[in-house]
């Protein structure tokens, strides 16, 4: 109970801090409308968008029902292409596999494309502890790495930062590299990061990327980016390592074309991301360039357990971020308040499943169940329904506060006895009416400070509808 309670305090502290963080609020406020409007425009330009979402859902459902077969097929193709597949049950195992590959390659510098699975593994800290220099090459990831933070959004890692903060961050870290001017404009910031990173790209021994999809019929991993950093990470170093969750496999290139049609539109409102790249293994004899070795580390980390229960639909997730972009709670508190790698609605569903129910009690509850996430999901994951399912599960496991459970149980007991309920409500209703009817609202209600600290409470009429109706109609 105490661990749960302290987690609860921690979540509340994080949200309070986020709500008071003027930089975060400014940055989130700017991001808020943009994603939503761009997605709407992209949808409007593709009349069959909803049908494509259905098709995307069906593809993912088919894969999940036959996951073992597609994973084996995928592995076979990767091997045929000259690559290796490594299976990791846990994040620790996956980190060890990656660290061993780096060690074997005598690597000193590692470049990384954006990979949420590597964040889930906490890979950077493991590699750094092994003496490697790890450089994130996605601009947003690079920014949060410089700041010593973690991504706050699965596709826009630094969405919580203002441009002014990024200017200062770059000045702090880049001035010693000769970039002594403070740059403030968006393009100049991008160019400075690009210029700094270019040097790293060519010296890296190992490049680590994630995968948006793994295509079983060809053994290719697919990454979509807007910066091209993923391609330089995949193709320039001697060794290319792909880290991916086991749910990323899809049957064919035809399926890929369907999923790509919903991915970028849902994420950024683009028809396609700027770069869509397929990598199918190490350099072949006929290739002029490319990595000498190609490894895929497939992470389970709780995913196979999700296959069997009522949460399977969550494995459809293609990490577009639309649910974050449309979540008013996420927009208010940002991603870090959620406390783990994944945030927003998809994070609140995933975190208890991958990281344990006990340490994430607040996540499914800090939600109004407004359903906007469910409405925009490109693979139709019923996110808000899954959050409600989490609450039922928490109740079964007795993870929510005892007093709250008792109050709800007691209220429900009364609510199933209408005459008693109507009798018990009469006095408090009358009292509240008597106290506030002239002003129309109560500015303070004992034990309801959560409401009245920031809002007035409109005064009840004094006599319930049921009582008024039945006294007017007589005993009908």
């Amino acid at each position, binding site marked *: 109970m105490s661990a749960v309670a302290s987690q609860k305090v921690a979540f509340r502290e994080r949200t309070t801090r986020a709500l008071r963080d003027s930089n975060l609020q400014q940055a989130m406020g700017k991001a808020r409308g943009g994603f939503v409007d761009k997605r709407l425009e992209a949808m409007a330009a593709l009349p069959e968008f909803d049908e494509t979402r259905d098709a995307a859902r069906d593809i993912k459902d088919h894969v999940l029902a036959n996951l073992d077969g597609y994973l084996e097929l995928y592995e076979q193709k990767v091997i045929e292409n000259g690559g290796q597949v490594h299976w990791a049950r846990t994040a620790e195992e996956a980190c060890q596999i990656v660290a061993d590959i780096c060690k074997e390659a005598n690597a000193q510098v590692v470049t990384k494309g954006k990979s949420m699975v590597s964040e889930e593994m906490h890979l950077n800290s493991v590699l750094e502890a092994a003496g490697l220099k790890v450089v994130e090459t996605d601009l947003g990831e690079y920014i949060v790495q410089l700041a010593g933070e973690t991504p706050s959004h699965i596709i826009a890692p630094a969405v919580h930062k203002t441009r002014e903060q990024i200017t200062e961050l770059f000045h702090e870290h880049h001035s010693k590299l000769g970039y002594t001017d403070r740059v403030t404009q968006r393009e100049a910031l991008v160019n400075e990061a690009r210029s700094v990173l270019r040097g790293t790209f060519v010296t890296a021994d190992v490049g680590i990327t994630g995968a948006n999809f793994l295509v079983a019929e060809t053994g290719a991993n697919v990454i979509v980016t807007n910066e091209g950093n993923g391609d330089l990470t995949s193709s320039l170093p001697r060794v290319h390592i792909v880290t991916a969750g086991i749910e990323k496999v899809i049957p064919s290139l035809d399926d890929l074309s369907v999923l790509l049609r919903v991915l970028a539109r849902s994420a950024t409102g683009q028809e396609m991301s700027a770069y869509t790249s397929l990598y199918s293994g190490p350099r072949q004899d006929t290739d002029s360039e490319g990595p000498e070795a190609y490894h895929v580390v497939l992470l389970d980390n709780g995913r196979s357990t999700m296959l069997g229960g009522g949460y399977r639909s969550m494995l459809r997730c293609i990490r577009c971020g639309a649910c974050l972009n449309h979540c*008013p709670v996420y927009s208010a508190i940002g991603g870090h308040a959620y406390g783990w790698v994944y945030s927003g609605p998809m994070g609140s569903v995933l975190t208890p499943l991958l990281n344990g129910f006990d340490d994430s009690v607040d996540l499914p509850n800090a939600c109004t169940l407004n359903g906007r996430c469910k409405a925009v999901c490109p693979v139709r994951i019923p996110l808000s329904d899954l959050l409600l399912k989490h609450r039922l599960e928490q109740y079964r496991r007795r993870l929510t506060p005892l007093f709250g459970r008792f109050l709800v149980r007691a209220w429900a007991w009364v609510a199933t006895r209408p005459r008693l309920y109507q009798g018990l409500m009469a006095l408090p209703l009358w009292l509240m009416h008597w106290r506030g009817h002239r002003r129309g609202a109560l500015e303070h209600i004992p034990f309801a400070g959560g409401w009245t600290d920031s809002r007035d409470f409109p005064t009840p009429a004094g006599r319930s509808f049921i009582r008024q109706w039945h006294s007017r109609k007589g005993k009908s």
Partner: protein
Amino acid sequence: MNSDKIKTSTQVGLFVTCLADLIRPQIGFAAVALLEQAGCTVRVPRNQTCCGQPALNSGDSASTIAIAKMVIKTFAQDDYVIAASGSCVDTICHKYPELFRNDALWAGRARALAAKTWELTSFLVEVMELQQVEATYDGVCSYHDSCSGLRELGIHDQPRQLLASVVGLELKEMNENNVCCGFGGLFSIKYPDISTRMVSDKCANVGHSGVDTLLGGDLGCLLNIAGRLRREGAPVRVFHVAEVLAGMTDGPAIGEGESDL
């Protein structure tokens, strides 16, 4: 009433909803008036309290099931069941059948109730084919689309269609009219900071729209928004859409006192 009329008219049971029952009974009277205007005979059974959402959203399925069984029994005899709240109707229509997934008998009863339960404005427009109401309201109004009604029940055009027939009423859409107001039932009390931030955003959008009245179809949202508007000192009146459609706007709006009139 003569007996011929009873035979020919559509019979409905009114599910008052706990918030309207306890806090703003006028919404119940407005719903009855509108249903009767549309040609319905309305029954208001005494054996009703709440749809059970507070228990369900707290994860207490046993309590929710007990309440759901009561609601199912109470309205078994009615041809239609009407509630002036999208979120309560969503609970009855979509959550009840799911609750009884493993109980064939009650699942059947729950589905039967779900099949005949409607939100007020959608019932008036889609089933009763009501084209217009007889009401006057002098004001510029914005409509807040409550989440469950909008996304789970598809309620968007129906209230607007009826509001268009209210004499003197001008409807002006505000930004983010489909974004949650931060009520979320117990959420507003469990996570007051986040809820306050969300309702403040909503109030800012109301303010920017320049309307003098905010309407909506769910009293929970309206209590939240009206409570915050009043705390901010914003001169915006808040009514449930049923009150305006029924012409019951002479008294205090939500959060207004007798001294305000």
